[in-house]
């Protein structure tokens, strides 16, 4: 259980997050949604423990800030791509936390090979990561997170740069993590996809939490529309699945 209470983050003179209190269940997929600038990425970085904050974030009762004992995987929206590095080596970096940097065990090599197969990257291990397509790069990032065998994975807009086909492929890969009991927290700009995959949704606006609950509850709450300044409409398909569509008619 991750417990966030009275969390505030200031960067320079700006309050990025203010008084956030949320509980996040283990083994579930929680999605952070909200307009740009709502503080979603900052919340992810705070959960990683790399960003100073006030208030408290505890992961199974332990404060997360600078706590290197946790094994948390982080998938950034804009990864830094090491020019000239092969896919195999890139994914192998995920084992560094367990084996120590540069000390891959043969067990790790086997895990990496298995995960490359699982994510459809086997055979591409010598190819440079800088030459991968957007979808392949995202899969390489997920593969690295999988070999890390984390207890928690944080994903920042894992599908933002992908077409629908690759979005589904990547989201299905993330679901593999959930099947392995990993807690997943991701930001996602597509609320329809968020509702389809995540069990919990946290709606953020201007550094605060506006709504928090099961996907079904959040999607059908009137506050969701107000978070997006009434620029969205929620429809329900015959199958019962919600679809969120931008509202074209409204002007400022």
């Amino acid at each position: 259980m991750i417990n966030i209470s009275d969390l505030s983050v200031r960067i320079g003179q700006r309050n990025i997050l203010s008084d956030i209190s949320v509980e996040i269940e283990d083994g579930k997929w929680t999605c952070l949604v909200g307009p740009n600038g709502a503080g979603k990425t900052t919340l992810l970085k705070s959960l990683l423990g790399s960003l100073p904050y006030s208030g408290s974030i505890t992961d199974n009762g332990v404060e997360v800030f600078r706590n290197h004992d946790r094994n948390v995987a982080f998938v950034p929206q804009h990864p830094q791509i090491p020019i000239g590095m092969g896919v195999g080596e890139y994914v192998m970096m995920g084992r560094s936390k367990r084996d120590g940097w540069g000390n891959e065990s043969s067990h790790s090599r086997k895990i990496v090979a298995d995960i490359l197969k699982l994510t459809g990257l086997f055979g591409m291990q010598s190819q440079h990561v800088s030459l991968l397509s957007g979808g392949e790069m995202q899969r390489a990032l997920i593969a690295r997170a999988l070999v890390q065998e984390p207890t928690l994975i944080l994903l920042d807009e894992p599908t933002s740069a992908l077409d629908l086909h690759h979005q589904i492929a990547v989201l299905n890969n993330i679901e593999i993590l959930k099947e392995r009991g990993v807690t997943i927290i991701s930001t996602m700009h597509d609320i329809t996809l968020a509702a389809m995959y995540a069990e919990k949704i946290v709606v953020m606006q201007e550094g605060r939490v506006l709504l928090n609950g099961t996907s079904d509850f959040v999607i059908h709450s009137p506050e969701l529309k107000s978070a997006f300044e009434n620029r969205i409409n929620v429809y329900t398909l015959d199958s019962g699945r919600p679809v969120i569509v931008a509202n074209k008619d409204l002007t400022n």
Partner: protein
Amino acid sequence: MIKNKSKSEESGLAPIWNWRITAFAAALLLFVGILAISFGPVSLSFQEIIRTLLGLPGGLTGQDRTLLIDLRLPRALLAAIVGAALATSGAVYQTVFRNPLADPYLLGAAAGAGLGATIALTSAGADLRSLLPVFAFFGAISAVLVSFFISGKFFAEPNSLLLSGIAVGSFATAVQTYLQQRNSASLRPVYSWILGELTVANWQVVTWSSIYILIALTILFTVSKQLDGLMLTDEEAYSLGINPNKLRVIAVVAATLATATAVSASGLIGFVGIVVPHLVRGLTHRVTNRGLLTIALVGASFLVLADLGARTLLSPAELPIGVITAFVGAPFFLFVLRKKRLVAH
């Protein structure tokens, strides 16, 4: 199933670094080193050199022995440690600043050392000529410190650090040029120092410079495996167990110590820090910093060979070693630039 499969075959993954390459680089350095101490205006017999070095009977005697022990050997050793220092620092700067064209002089170390050396060479009254290495060393360190100080938040914005390095470098060069113009007698020695020279090599220089450089390189080799994490975003590095800012400070301090020592011992030898890391990465198809030791060994071989060229091409006159390294380095630099553009497209 065939038994006794190698590790790499079992998982289908190539090893990240093949240490046989490092062993080969070490053998190369040994070969180049013996070549360098054998050749010159006076050629020495290979067998006699080996006998002399191993202390066996039948070695060199008289002038030949002095030539070997007091001139060629310290010079080759200085070339080797300076080459190792510059190549390793270059590779480390390239990783830390995520910039394949970064070189060891990036943060103003070269210009600072140049200013320090010029002050030593132009100062009236006291003879500071013998203190030139000390002045160059502190010039280099001060310039880097000022760059850090001006850019403020250390690595919060690597680009602002690079820009302040450029500004500090230009300022130091301006002051250096001014001092030089006011004292035209110093033009020639300053100029030849800037082009790099190993003619000053003696056992004293070799000893103090190798102490500093070995300390710096030991630190860099120790953190070399973690350095790969700096190729990722800070959050990814953090999640993989690295404290990125701490690692960057350690790496830059050690690389700057190595660079400042190299510069103060041998002047400004350009391009080694760019050519050698890219040569090793290009030939091995590996960018990992596990290759750092190999880069050091190849850098040492490169400079020993360049110095051999500097001594023998216009023999008995000498070319500044910086001319040789730049002659090879500049076209290579353009090649890397072009290749990088091709990859980006």
